[in-house]
């Protein structure tokens, strides 16, 4: 494959990014966190957040029946409120794509597959390619790839760039989400740099974390990534999606993320076309808060499906 950039060109491009003001970032976040949505706005926000979930199970112990159960949950979030939106996608390992695809065949819910030797990304490129192809052959609508953090931290930006570009080329019409695992990237400047790199290499979505390492989707990291998306949009008019994943387990935090994306990127991103939450336990908390809004009574986990 012909490299798109020489090492020098890529470095120049990455270095043109503005440095991240850490104090300013935290200040802005604390303002978002002090706000709270009430009444109809909250109800709307909860519905919106539900529709943006990539309902996820990524465990070594996943079985076909666990995945089928997840797919049923994705389609029927809470029987008492049949008019609730459905989640955006279910997110599984490549080996489970076929099972999920079959379980969701009569629905609009997409199947996302993690790929490229998720979660570590420590595999030869050939293996990563096969991993991706396997998921695509079984019908994955979206590919969530991890970057090679080791190469990135060693400064081999071209390697990471080419890898993303090559996977993107395999994807065809499937949308590509690129996972950074920001907990391993040390600083917000690094987060900004990898965001720019992934967007330049063809990512449709940029995603914070695998969910395997904490801290995952922290607000400063998300704000930094949203900044990269905004700058790219201002420059080129092309929209890039955002997916915070890991650690977003409460409705309150999810709503604050929505406030953040609305402030930074605007209304256009407030749809599951451009914004997703990678989460497993978030759905139930959103449902409990939704029911609380409807009935005025605090809810109990005992009345919601186990996930």
């Amino acid at each position: 494959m012909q490299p798109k950039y020489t090492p020098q060109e890529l470095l120049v491009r990455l270095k043109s990014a503005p440095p991240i003001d850490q104090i300013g970032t935290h200040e802005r976040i604390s303002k978002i966190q002090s706000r709270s949505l009430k009444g109809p706005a909250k109800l709307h926000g909860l519905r919106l957040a539900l529709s943006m979930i990539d309902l996820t199970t990524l465990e070594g112990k996943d079985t076909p029946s666990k995945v089928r159960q997840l797919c049923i949950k994705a389609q029927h979030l809470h029987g008492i409120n049949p008019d609730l939106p459905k989640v955006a996608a279910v997110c599984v390992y490549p080996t489970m794509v076929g099972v999920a695809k079959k379980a969701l065949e009569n629905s609009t819910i997409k199947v996302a597959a993690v790929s490229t030797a998720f979660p570590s990304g420590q595999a030869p490129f050939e293996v990563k390619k096969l991993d991706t192809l396997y998921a695509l052959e079984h019908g994955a609508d979206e590919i969530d790839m991890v970057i090679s953090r080791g190469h990135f931290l060693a400064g081999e930006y071209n390697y990471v760039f080419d890898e993303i570009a090559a996977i993107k080329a395999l994807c065809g019409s499937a949308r590509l989400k690129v996972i950074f695992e920001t907990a391993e990237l040390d600083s917000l400047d690094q987060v900004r740099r990898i965001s720019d790199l992934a967007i330049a290499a063809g990512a449709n979505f940029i995603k914070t974390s695998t969910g395997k390492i904490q801290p995952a989707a922290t607000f400063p990291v998300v704000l930094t990534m949203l900044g990269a998306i905004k700058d790219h949009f201002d420059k080129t008019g092309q929209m890039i999606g955002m997916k915070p994943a890991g650690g977003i387990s409460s409705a309150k935090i999810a709503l604050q993320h929505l406030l953040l994306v609305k402030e930074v990127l605007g209304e256009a991103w407030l749809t599951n076309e451009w914004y997703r939450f990678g989460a497993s336990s978030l759905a139930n908390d959103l449902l409990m808060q939704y029911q609380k809004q409807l009935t005025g009574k605090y809810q109990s986990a005992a009345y919601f499906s186990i996930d």
Partner: protein
Amino acid sequence: MEILKTYKLYIGGQFTRTESGRSYQIQSASGQAIANACLGSKKDIRNAVQAARKAQASWAAKSAFNRSQIIYRIAEMLETRKGQFIEELVLLGHSNPAAVAEVQSSIDRCIYYAGWADKYQALSSSVNPVSSPHFNFSVPEPMGVIGMVTCQETALIGLISQILPLIVGGNSVVVIANTTKALCAISFAEVLATSDVPGGVVNILTGEVAEMLPTLAGHMDVNALSLAKIEDHLSRNAQEAAVDNLKRCQLYNLDYFDSKNQGLHFITDFQEIKTTWHPIEQIAGGAAGY
């Protein structure tokens, strides 16, 4: 300079200010301000129920003997702080002998219920005769998270007499304490915090019963209510709100100084009975036996 102590809420093992930021003054019998207390809110109830739920399973899973030790420890800590409680009761208008008697009875009650921790199961379970080859037995299990309004007439003995039988039985509790006499309730929380009772097993809130009880009574994650005598309409509304998830409501109007008002049934008031059918083999064509 004398300063007024601010009594905080006790939620999840932490002394926290009310989320609402409000407070009220507690007055002595002669009308003097003696302390500030938190005027709790609905969200404090929410936080307390969350803490109680989190703590309940592991509290119930402790061995009965261990729960007994921990409750005995409450008595020991009360004993060392006897002076403080007597002083508070006197401030609230009790005579000195009456205050001493109330604190002493409270300590006795702790020791009494500590003794029950490994006995109530045996006395409230049974092996049941059934006409099929089954070993059929019934055992008590804690109901879970219990909401409580404590006695509004006494400051300490009522509080202790209502809380202890519930936690002996493996429940966790969210307590709305006596409004005007809240001093002892929060001092008791300080006792709990230093007596090995895991955080969240007992949560104590101060404030207006009328404001907080509807939220507690309607909360779907609260399994039962223990209500001391309160105004009729508050009690009735609470029982109505409790219907949605079929909370068991126990209403008490008792003189807790009377030692008749302690006993096994205050524990079993908040236990569910689980019955198990365990198949047994027909041995050598004989009649079913255990």
